[in-house]
Every structure is written in C-alpha cells, then in structure tokens.
C-alpha cells in the first residue's frame, strides 16, 4: 500500500497536476515523468561490466532515458525508466559482488525538470552562477551545483536544441519549478513599445 502511494506521488513531481507546458518564446519547462534514480558510491578501480563508470568527472553518458552521470571521484547518479529499477539493482549486485560499494534507490527523493529551448541557458543562469557556454558546459556535461537557494544536479543532454535536465530534491521541486518559470518570463526579449 505504501509502495503504491509512493509511486503515485512520483507521477506528480510538484505534488499537484500541472497543465501541459507550452513553449513560450523559445523555452519549455516541463516536470519529467516518474523515473528511477540510483546513487552509486564506489572507490577503487572502475571496471564493472555494463556501466560506463570510468568517464571523466562531471560528464554524463547515455541518452535522455537511461543515463549515468559522474558527479565526483567516487559518486555517480544513475537514471532510468521506473520499470528497469529492479533490473539495475540485480545487475549492479552481480557486477560489484565482493566490492565495498553503496547503491541507494533515491527515486522518491529526486524530481527532474526538463528545460529546453534556445534560451535555456539564460533561464538557468538566472539562479545558477555556472558558465553554461558551449566551451565550459558542452552537451554531455553533468554536475551538482546551485539554483537559487536549492542544490540541483544539472545535466545537459546532446541535441540540436539546448536541452537541460534539472534534478532537485522533491521538497525543493515547487520552489525550483517556480523559480525557473519566473526566470523564463524575465528571459523573454523585451518588446519595444514605439515612442509616441
């Protein structure tokens, strides 16, 4: 029963139904659907089969649905469709058998918000002091950082249109979503009123 309630809550990331977001002036802010996420901590040589763990720090591998982000020397954040969560736990247990590691299901803690569009970097920079230019934060980057007062994990997926995933804690989701929406309004080009 508890599990059912948890999974229901996960489908409403902001705790309430949200109207489908409409792209406004080249920016789309959309809470992601329920996904499974794992936090993996592991030290020592990185050679478990099946997981791309040996990538540089602050990069993400995979696609929009299944991704592995390396946040630090010994920390990874893994995201995938909810139906595959049990498979990952089994696969990781088999791969890392005999090695000290920690694999924690944080699906219920994390909420994803997708920020897409030409102005996405401007919107994020309203609260995130990182350099989000193509040289400093190219597609395939992922890092933990700050957005306003909340700690987030920022992931930039590959694609023609700038596409970012903001991962925050569930209790911060309403704040982060509201922050991004206000920033999107502020990022719109100013319509000049002709002088009379």
């Amino acid at each position, binding site marked *: 029963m508890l599990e059912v309630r948890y999974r229901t809550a996960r489908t409403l990331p902001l705790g309430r139904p949200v109207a489908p977001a409409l792209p406004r002036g080249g920016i789309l802010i959309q809470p992601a659907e329920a996904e499974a996420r794992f936090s993996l901590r592991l030290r020592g040589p990185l050679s478990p089969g099946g997981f791309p763990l040996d990538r540089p*720090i602050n990069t993400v591998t995979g696609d929009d649905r299944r991704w592995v982000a390396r*946040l630090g020397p010994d920390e990874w954040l893994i995201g995938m469709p909810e139906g595959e969560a049990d498979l990952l736990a089994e696969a990781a247990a088999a791969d890392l058998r005999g090695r000290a590691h920690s694999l924690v299901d944080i699906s219920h803690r994390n909420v994803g918000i997708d920020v897409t569009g030409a102005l996405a970097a401007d919107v994020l920079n309203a609260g995130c*002091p990182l350099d989000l230019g193509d040289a400093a934060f190219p597609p395939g980057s992922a890092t*933990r950082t*700050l957005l306003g007062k909340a700690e987030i994990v920022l992931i930039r997926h590959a694609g023609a249109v700038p596409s970012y995933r903001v991962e925050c804690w569930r209790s911060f989701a309403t704040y982060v979503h509201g922050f991004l929406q206000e920033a999107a309004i502020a990022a719109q080009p100013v319509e000049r009123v002709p002088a009379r």
Partner: protein
Amino acid sequence: MLLIACPHCGNRPETEFRCGGQAHIVRPVDPAALDDQSWSEHLFVRSNPRGVHAERWCHSHGCGRWFNALRDTVSDRFLETYPAGAQPTRSSEITSPEVPATVTQSTVTQARA
C-alpha cells in the same frame, strides 16, 4: 563572482564551496601526554595571518570533496589549490602570523580597536 579552482572540477563559483578553516594541523600522536595548555592550543588556537594562509575547503555543492588552498587574506586571491594530503608548491609564501610579511600602517582608529 570569485572563482575557486576545485582540483576535481576546475573553476567553479564560490557559492558552491565551504571553508573548513586552517589546513595542515597535525594531531598530536599521543594526546594523553599533553598538558592542558598544549591540548587547548591544538584544539582552539589557529593562526590568523595577514597574507598567505593555507586553508581547507570543501566543494560541498559540487563533487563534495575536501581540498586545500592557499589564499591571500588581504586580496582574497586564491594562489593555489591542491588535493587533501598534498603539500603546496608555494609553501615558502605562507605567512606566519608572528612575522607579518608587510609592515602595516594602522590608523588611529585601528590602533585603538
């Protein structure tokens, strides 16, 4: 905004970091052998130099790792960051609080304070 070079992540904004105070404080091998004066100095007394200071910093809103940094307390400029457990390459520049690097001309107000 001040940028701090995390040894793992590169240049990052200062709001992601947390300062952990003076670095390279060696814990006594046998604390029980110390008298109260030495033990309290180990615990509480820290140098407060005007000049280059070795500090511990944590990239708490980033990779989460601790590292060390040489910072000039006058200009707030970070001279060097290096991993925890390592020694700075510019260790000769660290200012000892007993020997000020520069003679300071204090104003009357500062002298009274």
